[in-house]
């Protein structure tokens, strides 16, 4: 840059010659220079302002544009990451202990109508009535031509029905996706599974909720997406359950019973392997609750859990086991059985007269009420109540079903001496077959308490001790003798040492006051194999009568025992128990090719 000097020599000399002040020239030049600098600075500032203005303009345009697009577009969650596993929104499956499906979901469609959009409502109604025979054409026409804007037609339809409705071609008939709860095995384990229905429902989806049984009990678990679709594993074995129900249904019709229940329990863990109650129902199409009459006649009623009955002589083993535990008797102690036994205004009788005395073992084998009552008197009311309480007889079973609390046992308000005596042979205390099963399991598994459960258990901890191991062993021996030479002789199953105790209890009249003469609850509580107890099976028949003889036979020995024996014969191989038989000849292999 060429700088103009402030005092150019030529002009200074000239000015001196003329006698002028040279400082004027310098001042003039300074002024010019300052003006130039000011011009330059302003120009630069103007340029900067322009750039800044442009920048602000662009920024506001961008912000405005962005606001415009945000206002006019569908909101969307910004996603910078994705979760590891897609959330499975379906209700979880229910499987048995071997992973076989007991309840699952099926994607179906629901059918709804917008009558306003219909072009030819009469034709649509006719078409629908043809596809769904249960719909009335006149009602549909009335609905479609009325002033309704929306109506459900069917909650769930099959793909074939959907195609047929589609073919009607009415723009007012619409489909929504719908999840359907499916029980592929039909009525098998119906009381345990319960059933499901729809909660809040919309066009796009509907909430599936459990209404009874484990579906209701574990509703939260089954619906929790955090489980990632992990199924609910029950303790049931589907094959065993199916075989149990088949045999029980056959037995119920052979014995002319109006209802039946059975419980098969693992003696160590308390896992319920099969639990059946007849009559049953199909959970895919759950019947309605009875609005009148006795709820216990409904197929929905679970006799094994909710049905509390006086279970009769099956209780005798508890009195005797407790007396042995307390050291009051041993299997050979002789007990006075001279009848009838009178206590106040009560008289206790035996089915037959068993003579003046029997050994403790024979009291069980011959099922003497008098003998058991005398043993119960030795124990006393307080200790008996505590013992039965430790076996779980004083409260509802803790099984994982919503119906469990309704199966609370009926215990006498005043546990008097006469109550002690009657309860010792199973009258005066009503409990469910499931109570009996867990009590037998607790008594016979070595003497530690088990709690019934419907969930698969992996190494559950041992419960508190109820009786000594030796007493448990002796009780199993006594029960074995009942089958070998006592009231349950039909209970013999070749290959499996079955032990058990029969119980035949008269049904109390509903109106109160006394018992029916010709209606009984026949129960067989069994354990197998008796030399190393593994499973407990309870079979209860409601009002059975075996009519092959001259007069109807109602005792458990003739009714419940053969059914239980057939059940054990069918079920034991499924449980992996090898029968103890001497095979007649050794098996040889035939060569079919070389």
């Amino acid at each position, binding site marked *: 840059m060429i700088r103009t000097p402030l005092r150019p020599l030529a002009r200074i000399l000239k000015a001196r010659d003329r006698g002028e002040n040279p400082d004027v020239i310098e001042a003039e030049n300074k002024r010019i220079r300052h003006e130039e600098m000011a011009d330059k600075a302003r120009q630069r500032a103007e340029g900067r302002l322009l750039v800044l203005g442009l920048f602000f303009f662009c920024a506001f345009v961008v912000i405005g544009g962005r606001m415009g697009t945000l206002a006019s577009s569908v909101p969307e969650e910004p996603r910078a990451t994705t979760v590891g596993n*897609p959330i499975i929104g379906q209700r979880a499956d229910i499987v048995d202990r071997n992973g076989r499906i007991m309840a699952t979901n099926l994607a179906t469609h629901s059918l709804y109508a917008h009558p306003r959009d219909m072009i030819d409502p009469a034709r649509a109604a006719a078409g629908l009535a043809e596809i769904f025979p249960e719909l009335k054409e006149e009602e549909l026409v009335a609905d479609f031509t009325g002033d309704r804007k929306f109506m459900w037609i069917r909650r769930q339809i099959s793909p074939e029905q959907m195609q047929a409705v589609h073919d009607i071609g009415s723009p007012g008939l619409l489909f929504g996706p719908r999840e359907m709860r499916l029980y592929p095995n039909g009525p098998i384990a119906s009381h345990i599974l319960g059933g499901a229905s729809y909660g809040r429902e919309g066009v796009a989806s509907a909430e599936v909720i459990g209404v009874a049984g484990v579906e209701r009990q574990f509703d939260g678990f089954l619906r929790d997406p955090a489980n990632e679709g992990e199924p609910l594993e029950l303790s049931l074995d589907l094959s065993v359950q199916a075989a149990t129900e*088949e045999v029980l249904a056959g037995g119920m019709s052979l014995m002319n019973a109006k209802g039946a229940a059975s419980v098969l329990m693992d003696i160590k863990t308390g896992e319920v392997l099969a639990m059946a109650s007849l009559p049953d129902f199909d959970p895919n199409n759950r019947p309605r609750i009875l609005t009148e009459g006795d709820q216990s006649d409904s197929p929905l009623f679970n006799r094994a859990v909710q049905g509390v009955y006086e279970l009769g002589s099956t209780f005798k083993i508890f009195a005797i086991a407790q007396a042995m535990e307390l050291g009051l008797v041993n299997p050979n102690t002789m007990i006075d059985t001279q009848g009838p036994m009178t206590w106040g205004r009560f008289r206790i009788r035996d089915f037959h007269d068993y003579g003046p005395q029997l050994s403790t073992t024979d009291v069980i084998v011959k099922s003497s009420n008098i003998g058991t009552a005398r043993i119960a008197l030795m124990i006393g009311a307080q200790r008996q109540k505590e013992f039965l309480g430790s076996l779980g007889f004083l409260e509802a079973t803790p099984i994982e079903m919503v119906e469990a609390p309704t199966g609370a046992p009926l215990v006498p308000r005043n546990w008097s001496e006469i109550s002690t005596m009657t309860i010792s042979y199973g009258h005066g205390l009503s409990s469910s077959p499931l109570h009996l099963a867990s009590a037998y399991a607790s008594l016979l598994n070595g003497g530690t308490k088990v709690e019934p459960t419907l969930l698969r258990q992996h190494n559950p901890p041992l419960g508190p001790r109820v009786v000594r191991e030796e007493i448990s062993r002796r009780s199993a021996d006594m029960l074995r003798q009942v089958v070998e030479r006592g009231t349950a002789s039909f209970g013999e199953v070749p290959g499996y040492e079955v032990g058990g105790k029969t119980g035949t209890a008269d049904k109390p009249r509903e109106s109160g006051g006394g018992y029916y003469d010709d209606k009984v609850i026949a129960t067989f509580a069994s354990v197998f194999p008796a030399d190393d107890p593994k499973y407990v099976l309870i079979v209860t028949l409601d009002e059975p009568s075996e009519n092959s003889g001259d007069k109807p036979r109602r005792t458990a020995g003739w009714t419940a025992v053969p059914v239980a024996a057939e059940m054990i014969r069918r079920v034991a191989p499924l449980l992996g128990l*090898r029968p103890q038989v001497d095979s007649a000849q050794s098996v040889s292999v035939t060569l079919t090719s070389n």
Partner: protein
Amino acid sequence: MRSVLYVLAALAVMGLAFWAYQENYKTQQAIKQVRNLHAQIGAAHERLGMLKAEWAYLNRPDRLADLAELNFDRLGLLPLMPDAFGQVDNVIYPLPPIEPIINPVELSSDAFVNDGEEPL
């Protein structure tokens, strides 16, 4: 020197911006792909559920019992009896057949001595 630094810094900013832009788009693409895969997995789950339900329905114990009854004679089935259980050690396994000798090998004890080798 300073202007060179400015230019370099500007270039670096531009380069980084370009890189970030590209990474952003790659991420979006990957997320889209994952979402697509999730949708596929969901559809597969649904299909699997359907197939499982069908399998369970076709294998329901009632149906199997009916099928077993229908084909009882044809398959030569027998009712399950306790003596139908055998023990593995009761089974007489056939001995492997002895093959006929086709090319015999001549051996004499002298041969070993002559060779001076240890007999195996």
